[in-house]
């Protein structure tokens, strides 16, 4: 015959054994939820701005830029895209590059997202790469098309406690990786001269801000 305290003791033992797992899984799951909510709320805000027909072109650009600069760690991305030239370029050139990159990235992001304003974004899950590095998976659904939804992933870092966006991938193609490959190749073709890249980025930012023909 079983002693009357058998069940509570087992429950206690189970709870004791599973406690470390719960303690580690709890914050990880919560952090993943934070990353998912961050993407869900803010990408919708961004798409809403781009969809708002009442805004003038300048108002739309300014509002989108303000939102974007609050969400994206432009400095971290900019330094990454410089590749090995980050270490060899003069510090003042790196700072000037980061400023030019901010303008270019804002114009480029606005140009990319403006193509999808008639579509809806749905968060489908997330993957944790490290305690502060998450990939949030989403689907971009075009209500007017019978085609399969496009997969868009957002890389979110939470190193400072506040989530920030560091990269975005469309159908598995990461934007920051592509930018780094371009910038490093461009610098290789131009004797590593970061100022040439700055001039080129500034010109592109202006062109991207113009309406398409």
């Amino acid at each position, binding site marked *: 015959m079983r002693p009357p305290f058998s069940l509570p003791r087992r429950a206690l033992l189970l709870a004791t054994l599973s406690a470390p797992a719960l303690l580690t899984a709890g914050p990880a799951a919560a952090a993943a939820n934070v990353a998912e909510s961050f993407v869900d709320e803010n990408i919708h805000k961004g798409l809403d701005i781009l969809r708002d027909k009442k805004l003038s072109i300048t108002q739309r650009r300014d509002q989108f830029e303000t939102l974007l600069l609050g969400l994206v760690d432009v400095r*971290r*991305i900019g330094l*990454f895209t410089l590749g090995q030239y980050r270490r060899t370029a003069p510090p003042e050139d790196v700072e000037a590059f980061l400023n030019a990159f901010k303008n270019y990235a804002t114009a*480029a992001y606005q*140009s*990319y997202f403006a*193509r999808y304003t008639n579509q809806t974004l749905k968060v489908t899950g997330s*993957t944790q*790469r490290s305690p502060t*590095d998450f*990939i949030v*998976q989403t689907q971009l659904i075009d209500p007017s098309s*019978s085609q*399969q939804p496009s*997969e868009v*992933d957002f*890389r979110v*870092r939470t190193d400072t406690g506040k989530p920030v966006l*560091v*990269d975005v991938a469309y*159908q*598995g*193609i*990461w934007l*920051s*990786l*592509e*930018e780094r*490959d*371009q*910038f*490093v*190749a*461009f*610098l*290789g*073709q131009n004797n590593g001269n970061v100022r040439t*890249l700055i001039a*080129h*980025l500034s010109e*592109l930012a202006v*062109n*991207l801000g113009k309406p*398409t023909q």
Partner: protein
Amino acid sequence: MRGVRGLFLGLSALALAGCATGPASPEALAANDPYEQANRDMLKFNGKIDKYVVIPTVGLYFILVPEGGRRGVHNFLGNLSLPTIFVNDMLQGELSRAGKSMWRLTINSTIGLGGFFDPASKIGVSGHGEDFGQTLAVWGVKEGPYLVLPFLGPSNPRDAAGLMVDAAMDPTNQIPLKQHIWWSAGREYFTLLDLRAQTYQTIQGIQRSSVDYYSSLRSLYRQLRNEQIRNGRKQGQDLPDF
């Protein structure tokens, strides 16, 4: 995929041999692109073909063929590729995907009137791509240096070899047609037209926002191929730390 591609691949080998230039830069070597200068020249050549031959025809294609017709052509070409996709699914051990490919081929070739319509997608049997270059990658073959092929664009030795194997296993190339070259060239031409019509805006966007269009394409091609080889699975995705 088809016979005409063999000719292009032969031409590309000749072109690379002819364009052999001085030693590659450290950046080119680091990017696994030792033939960078020859590749850049080939991209310029392809760009001229695109600008003066392909794009004007794409314009005519848009004017002369209504959207429904263009969709039909797209579906038909996709259906022709399904036997090759099925074989590659099997060679990769992807039995579930192979089953889907076979289902699509059966449904679309019959109810879809030879593949012009896509009723399979409407009942949830969606399509996917697969080729022998991807099969080689799944078997562990490395991609090799980056190449830009004449007319065909970004590639590498593994994917170029894959194209030839796909051409050899394509059932339509076994049909003993007297004028087989016309069938092959016609199919190739419409594939190019369909692809360019579908990617017109995307490529325009890349050209407009690129600091260096050549290296942008190289990066996009490699990332896209890796995604295709993984079949969209997120696990194993190798991302750098920021």
